[in-house]
């Protein structure tokens, strides 16, 4: 049984000005596990790349959420704030994976300035 993303992972907004000060983002994606007989809890981790100083509101590089997902596609969203200068990044990378290690989708948020 495997969870899969069946849409692109999108960020709203898809760009922001440096530096980020508790900048609010909404990340959305459709997930499904066609072989699951019943919806079940999935541990989803959203992570920021290690090469910059951006962090989520709790101060970490990752946030984890649990969502119940089965054979019917589910819209999964994450509302989070991000802070940091962004360093030399022109676009920062956000990766969604199902723990422990199944990468589902990636998106890039453009940084201006």
């Amino acid at each position: 049984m495997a969870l899969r993303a069946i849409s692109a992972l999108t960020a709203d907004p898809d760009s922001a000005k440096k530096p980020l000060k508790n900048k609010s983002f909404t990340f959305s994606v459709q997930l499904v596990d066609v072989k699951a007989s019943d919806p079940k809890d999935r541990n989803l981790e959203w992570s920021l790349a290690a090469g910059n100083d951006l962090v989520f509101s709790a101060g970490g590089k990752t946030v984890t959420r649990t969502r119940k997902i089965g054979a019917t596609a589910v819209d999964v969203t994450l509302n989070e704030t991000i802070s940091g200068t962004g360093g030399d990044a022109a676009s920062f990378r956000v990766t969604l994976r199902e723990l422990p290690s199944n990468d589902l989708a990636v998106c890039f948020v453009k940084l201006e300035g």
Partner: protein
Amino acid sequence: MLWQWQLVSLVRGVFRRWSSRCAVLTLSVAIALLGAPIVAAGAPQGGAAAPQDTAPAGDGAVPPLTGPQPQRDTLTAADEAPGSRDVRVSFTQNFISDRLPFDVPFNVTGSVVTSVKRLELSVYQVRSNVDLARLISDLQRTVNCVGQQPQGRLVSQSAATPSDTGAFSLFVNALDPQYYYAFCFVGVSPVPGADFNDDVRRILASLIPRLDNGGDITNAMLADVRSAMSGKIAEIGEGRPVRATIPPGNLFDPARPTDPRFGPLATALTDPFVNMEIQQRGHTNSVNEFVADVADARSGGSVRFTSELNAALTGVNRTLPTRASAVTGTASFDSAGFRFEDAKAALDNAVKAAAAGSEELKVLNGLVNDLQEVINAAQTYGLHYDRMHNATAALINFVALEARVVTVTLGSSVLSADLARSAYVSMDAGIAYPWRLESMVFYAGTNIYFRPINKAAPLRYKGTFLHRFALTVGITTTVKDDSRRAQDLRNTEDNDTSNSLLLGAGIRVTPSLRVGGGVLVFKESDANPLIDQTSVAVTPYVSFTADVDVANLFRSLF
């Protein structure tokens, strides 16, 4: 009115003599003294309209010098009314027929083929130490008529967009007289995208992986990829039969280290590129699982594999198109081809045929889910494939090359012998105040310049010392001063006029007015009335005069 009559009489007298002896002598001496380059004046002349032509030659070969026809060289048409006359250029002749105006700006005009969308002009002054052939050769090896500092002095640059019919008019700064000039034209024509898009797509496909290092897209990565693309695109232009370059201001203009437009375009490419890898991995796993489950079903014997079902399932392990093909290809993802409708229908039929609650139905339902996972993975891959394909098209739109055809033609501001005389020498008339004599005198004189003078050129614009300064040789009206016993130096045979000599120099303060000074040469009788002898004496003078338009004066006098 008296002074006007005196002046006219004086001028008439002067011209009568000059027509026979003085003028020829004076002017010959003056020109000899100045060392005017009149020998060169016969060189670049022309007058017959040159056929206006086609595009500049593009093969880089130096065309043979084509000899224009002799021209009527007058100041009035070419120089005296700035902007009133354009200099026609024909690319079929590499010597401009008309003498170039000097000291005033002007336009060169002509026509090019309509595919030329921009025409650039660089004008080089060719000094005596410049090897002309080498200069032409150097310029024709460039793509912008500048290259690496060709010989000659760059004196004018301009650019224009030809009209729909190919007619153009290009501005040229005021040029110095008595020089040859190399006119270097660059005809700029856009290269059709179809000529290079395939190559650019291949280049892009090879460079995108550099933007995925597992982390962010950094500015350094963008600069690296943009620079690499710029270099490769420039190489494409270099390799064309007619050299082409990336237009200034283009996204890949190598003159600029970065371009803010590139980041979003590169991100739009990298995002699907990274996601396609994830989806491809998922697709591979799903296909492997499907194939394994089908194999298990076969070996288990619970499912009846009809020939129809076998045929339908065979195509499910179809390979996805590569990520690179989303960039290099021109087609979108074959979404229908990866929906596996036949396999789905065959499995659905098998499910319907299977007995309820049977092992066969359970296995078949598992295969249906396996297939759906394969389809989901393929379709999601296709979603990103099309995103990448569209992002590629958006970026390709920014890629441009311009073919640059360089053509060099020569022009000359060297004056013809006749014109040189009137350009170096002018007449003026006015009043002089001799320092130690009782009265002022009227005089007419010849001004000898050390460079050709175009009186139409404003002194404020072209007003160097040599534009203003001239030596003056003049002849005065009657000099009488009883207190100094002054007499005319020379009387005419019929005694209707009499003259003394005036030698000096002057400065033009306006295009036609001059102040001057020098010495007045006159005869002086001896102070002893018993001695009937005269001697030549001089006295300083200051003068205020107006330049005389020789041509108009002649017309009015004769």
